[in-house]
């Protein structure tokens, strides 16, 4: 752990005094932190602390009122959601948003959208390169399904899968866009103890593939076990940042959680 700390890898994501208000509610107030390349970074905090707001600001669902979001040193604050995916930021949703009526394989193939080129006229003409690209996309999507252990379910309807598997398909779909930063919104929510343990293993495997991870998570044992660094939010403000050990000993963090009765 210490050795990694000293190397100080370049940041993939930097938030600089990012703020966002909804009406009178200040959901994020001058939040700054950076996520180092190759790390697993966690955002924690009581309900309503602004974790999902930050996710939406990073992925571009809405723009920040103030402050900047830098991805690999480039300001992505003005980019649309899909442009940020093309730049290398992928995400999953808290409630799993699969395209339920499409097959599992097709879901992952939609994830390849930004890495494939066939347009409207290409699809109509079905040039040889379009066929090739389609075959390659199919193969790549199958590889990602294999990676999460669901290649046997490729032809099933996504909506028919049990919830835990749907979550894995969503992760495979996100990975298919070949992100360098993957945001996971409560990936362990709704999973049982065994699935959560498997998820921890999977997240580490994703990291070894060169993907930096930023997750919001309520499952403390998982978070403490896999995270390199943790940012703690409370009422839209960052109240602490550090290694899992430092966070566990931080009095402000304890107060925030106990104050909320968690």
């Amino acid at each position, binding site marked *: 752990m210490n050795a990694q700390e000293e190397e100080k890898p370049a940041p993939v994501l930097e938030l600089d005094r990012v703020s966002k208000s909804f009406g009178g509610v200040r959901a994020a107030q001058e939040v700054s932190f950076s996520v180092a390349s190759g790390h697993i970074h966690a955002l924690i905090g009581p309900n309503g602390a602004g974790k999902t707001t930050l996710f939406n600001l990073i992925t571009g669902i809405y723009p920040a009122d103030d402050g900047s979001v830098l991805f690999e040193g480039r300001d992505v604050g003005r980019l*649309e*959601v899909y442009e940020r995916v093309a730049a290398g930021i992928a995400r999953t949703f808290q409630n799993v*948003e699969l395209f339920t009526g499409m097959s599992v394989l097709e879901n992952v*193939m939609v994830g390849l959208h930004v890495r*494939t080129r*066939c347009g409207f006229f290409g699809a*109509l003409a079905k040039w040889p390169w379009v066929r090739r690209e389609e075959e390659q996309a199919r193969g790549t999507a199958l590889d990602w399904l294999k990676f999460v252990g669901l290649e046997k379910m490729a032809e099933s309807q996504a909506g028919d899968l049990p919830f835990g598997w749907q979550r894995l398909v969503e992760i495979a779909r996100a990975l298919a866009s070949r992100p360098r930063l993957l945001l996971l919104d409560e990936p362990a929510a709704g999973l049982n103890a065994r699935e959560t343990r498997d998820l921890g293993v999977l997240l580490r495997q994703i990291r070894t593939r060169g993907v930096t991870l930023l997750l919001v998570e309520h499952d403390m044992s998982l978070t403490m076990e896999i995270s390199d660094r943790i940012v703690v939010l409370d009422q839209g403000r960052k109240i602490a940042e550090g290694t899992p050990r430092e966070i566990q000993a931080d009095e402000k963090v304890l107060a925030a959680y106990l104050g909320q009765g968690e």
Partner: protein
Amino acid sequence: MRVLANVIGYLLVGSAILAVGLWVDNYYYFQLLTFIGINTLLAVGLNMLMGYAGQISLGHAAFYGLGAYTTGILGVHLGWPPLVTLPCALLVSGLVAWLVGRPTLKLHGYYLGMGTLGVGMIVHVLFREWSSLTGGPSGLPGIPTLSLGPLEIPGGRPYMFVVWGVVLVSFAMCQRLVHSRVGRALRAIHFSEQAAAAVGVDTARAKLQVFVFAGVLAGLAGFLYAHMVTFVSPSSFGFLVSVRIVAMVVIGGMASIWGSLFGASLLTMLPEWLHVFSEYEVLVYGLILVVVMIFFPQGLTRGMLDLYERARRGKTGSGS
């Protein structure tokens, strides 16, 4: 499996049309089948938009009418040949679709429905009131019959073949689209626009493309209509016609290319069969639509497949 079913579909439709063309000698049937073909074009285009991308157009008759009137006006007033008016008709329909779709499709929700509703009304008023150009409420007569260069294609049998050729080609185009990167993106938008964007789909662009495509297909249908009837009038492109195209899509089955054929066939032939009810015709027509929707909420195609499945299971069940 999918490919096989499609090949069978093309063969069935193609040979049915061929059979009618070869063994039947009745202008009325040729005309009815031509109308079914034109309506199928309208329905399949709208189905790409509604059934696959989940966006609704309540003014589809406007694009149909723009295609027909462009063909008519250029043909009658300027004497342009069909080979020149065809691209103009497609361009006008597509351009108007683009102008309506561009602002409304940037938004999520049913704004396209409102936008197209408005365009449908505006275009209809233009057809009726711009008399010097459109002939006003009494219509624009004297559109020449279809000719492609030296090749004359009069109404009746040859025209039916041409229209159905166009229908089958457009089916193939739609199927290619549906099973491509573009089609996957459209279906993804239907399930969740937010998730589609989060996966990297430029949702506004994808929706706009398919809307313009549907508009161009409607323009093509309008071109074929104008050359068949050789006369266009505003009443053929009013709000009720737009509703009827939506009904064809829903009755035939959303997100089903072959369903568009069923829906268009049923809704084109139904009024012909219902003449016997004279003044109660509209009532029976509405009643049939309601009944179909109650028993086959997923449309006729899905409904018939389900019935077939149930019958087969029932047979094997009683046998064991």
